[in-house]
């Protein structure tokens, strides 16, 4: 029973860390398009091929990178490419 509980605990911890895994990289924004239907910004970067998704709260940070052609420190979920932070 004890082993079973430990196993469950391990699975819970493992799966939550898997879901919460994020990556952080310095990227230069090349495009910002508001998706009116889905209510988020679609973001593209210089090399990256995926279309990333960002909440409106990150717009200013991403726009700055786009306009100044500077890198932004972007944190995102690699499964789904949802941006969770921008600095």
């Amino acid at each position, binding site marked *: 029973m004890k082993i079973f509980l430990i196993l469950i605990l391990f699975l819970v911890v493992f799966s939550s860390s898997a879901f919460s895994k994020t990556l952080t990289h310095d990227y230069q924004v*090349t495009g910002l398009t508001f998706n009116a239907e889905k209510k988020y910004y*679609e973001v593209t970067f210089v*090399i990256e*091929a995926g*279309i990333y998704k960002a909440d409106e709260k990150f717009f200013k940070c991403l726009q700055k990178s786009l306009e100044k052609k500077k890198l932004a420190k972007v944190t995102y979920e*690699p*499964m789904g490419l949802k941006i969770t932070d921008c600095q």
Partner: protein
Amino acid sequence: MKKFNALIFVCFYLLLSKMVFAATVEVEGKQYNCEAPKSYMTYVCANGSKKIIVGMTDGGWAAFSKEGPGIVSLKSITKLIDGKVLYQSNEIAPYEDTIYNRKIAADQINFSLGSKSEPLAKELVSEANTFNSNYNEVIPSLTLKMNEGGDVYQCTKGSTRPLTNKQTSLQDQYKTKFTCPYYSCSGKDPAEKVLMVLPKPGNTFTSPNMLVMKNGQAKLVEGGYKISNGSSLLIANFPKGYNSDNDDNTAGLPPADVNPDLLIPSKYNDSKSSYKYLLDMAKKDFDDSGYLDLCSGNDIKALGAERKKIGLAMQSYLSEAELIEYLKVIDGSIHSYYVDRKKGQTLGCLYQNKVVDSSVLGQYGHLKEISTVKSNGKYLRPDEVQDLFKKAKNMKDIPFDYKYDGCYARAHVMSKRFEAMGIPTQKAWIKGKLFVPGTDIEWQYHVAPTVEVKEKNGKIVNYVIDPSLTDKAVPLDEWVAAMGKKTTGPIMKTTYPFPGNALDFQRTTVAISPSDVYAPTDLQSMSAEDKMEFSTQKLKEFTEVLASQGKR
């Protein structure tokens, strides 16, 4: 002794003036001496008999004064010195006495001075309240006169539909009136249909503008006109660009590295001023923050419908516009843009049917290198290309199951390994709004290695090796067809570098490049070692992501 007395006098004078005049302020070229503030950030100042109060508005420092019974003004200041310079700005256009500006002043006085104890502050608040109690927000009809040319338009305010209960309660709560902000105007040309918006005084989110529509074209006029209603005092005088954030990027299409005018199809040359505005509106399905919804009159509804018709026509024409590729060096790299064919043809000489800007001439050797695919006559057989696909798929360090991103890294590592096997390899590129059918995966571009195959009928065909997308090597066209596309325009076959703004014209572009090319943007600063190192690092990272998901 005389000198000593003079010195004493000067010191005494300076001390006295410091006690009385704590600060100075410049307003419209006149200097005012100010008393030491009694309330926080509030100065009572005078120039002769003229008294003003300097305080903070929601837009910065400003000067308030009384101009007559029930007439107040708000003027911008250019310099405020209190011991040190507290504020300084460039010369600002002098205050003009209009109903619009009096209303702004009255509201700002209440905002800034409502809680102040200075007698002048109290007097100004009282005058502002007198003005507000007599102010009529609704101006049923007005005359608009252009500053340039002097054209005159007669405008009638659109009627307002009955408000919902929620709107009525919000109206009461914020002590305002929700009314249709649009006017229907007519000038000397009966064919013109004119929709004008007059925002409330102090509304900095909406610029006063008029949309002049005729024969499927539209001109957006933002300021540059006076508004009156027959009385001697103007309602408003809006200089050109008043409150506008339209910074002349008339195309509204990124990037600003090319003249925005080149991005506007020749067909809409007469609509340059409205092109960005109407395309933006089309993208938002003509959502104007509920303004049009407040209007009930057929005249305004018809003008709103005409605006929508022109905007939708502009949007739909994007995929049909006749374009030409324009190559230009920006930040040291060669970039390609789609521009209007007619306007673009005169910009330089032609290379591979693209117009080359003079900035590219210094990099002509490099351009040739990245845009030309050399065939050395060594072709794979159809069975060999399928074997190669299997070998690629078995490259365990490449996470083909991670499809959200990283194609550039997969393509680069595969290409270099194929070349190491003695197989001439290029890269196949597709750029657009792409998606992998049946998934939530979207790409702005995709790339994979491609090799030339001699088919049984002797035809040479490019096959693409892309285990992340297909389960065997497929001809280029099949690879292109395997991706979903969210564009309405055609697929354009071109060469590298391909246009970065193809999506703005609803196009998907396909190109083949030498294997050394790394990204959609020509990245000359990246060495061969950098490219391989970056790719290896990315592949490792994505492998770890899959592992964390229990998928590897």
